[in-house]
């Protein structure tokens, strides 16, 4: 069994309205936030023949469904999980 932690984030240059609202709240609390960007963290447990195979599968998941290439970039880490 493998476990993937996938991070999906708006691309640079895409205005993130949630990030802007949170930045406002942080600054209201006195944190002097310069920039806030909200993303998604998705955890997937999957079966695969090898670590390499798992990475290939996760990349395909991101490209097909988990991220929208018009707006979002993705990154991920995959680790083997002992049962």
């Amino acid at each position, binding site marked *: 069994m493998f476990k993937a932690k996938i991070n999906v984030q708006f691309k640079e240059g*895409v205005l993130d309205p*949630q990030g802007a609202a949170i930045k406002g709240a942080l600054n209201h609390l006195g944190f002097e936030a310069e920039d806030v960007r909200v993303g998604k963290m998705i955890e997937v447990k999957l079966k695969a023949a090898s670590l390499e195979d798992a990475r290939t599968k996760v990349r395909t998941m991101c490209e097909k469904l988990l991220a*929208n290439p*018009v707006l979002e970039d993705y990154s991920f880490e995959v680790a083997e999980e002992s049962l």
Partner: protein
Amino acid sequence: MKSAIIVFPGSNCDGDCFHVLSEVLGQPAEYVFHKEKFSAGDFDLIVLPGGFSYGDYLRAGAIARFSPAMESVLKAAERGKLILGICNGFQILLEAGLLPGAMMKNRDLKFHCHDVYLKVGTADSPFTNLYLPGEVVKMPVAHGQGNYYADEDTIERLKSENRIAFYYSDEKGRVTEKANPNGSAANIAGILNEGRNVLGMMPHPERCAEEILGNADGKKLFKSILEYLEGRSKIGKIGRS
């Protein structure tokens, strides 16, 4: 003119679309469940209605686009059949890649449910041929993710190819920042594909297609489709259809 209305889990404007097509226009219409495939030859128009397919999980429209019925929609679009995506239907068309760009949460993060004014960007389409270019119409919007985004090259291309069907405007047709309810790039409310047989729009023409509702501005859109399919529209035939 025979229409299919695709019903996804979470669609909620399918009944309104069915009513307008079958009762107001008096044309045959059928519901097609998202798990069914259909033959493109059976229908002249395919409507992807508004709603919240799959609860808008992940991104609006992202999961619905993998429905079996969407495979048939992609084939029908390829064959030049008319495809109309309204609200969530527009989001699904974007996710499916039938139209360029993507939707983001509204700029002010609020759900917008009110009437908007729209300036007709082009009358040169099967969906808008009864409108006049530049005409101002009123239609309701009801969405939380209608903030249209595309890169600058795509926006320029949409403009130069006359593919922006509707702009958010004020009552006088001025396309201003103030008249933009959700932050959409270039005030875009609806766009056509390259072949002009696919239209996606956030406002709801099916909710304003009868005089008894106090607004029938949306009826012209459905009548335009009928005029086009029956060969009476001023635009003639597009592409391969």
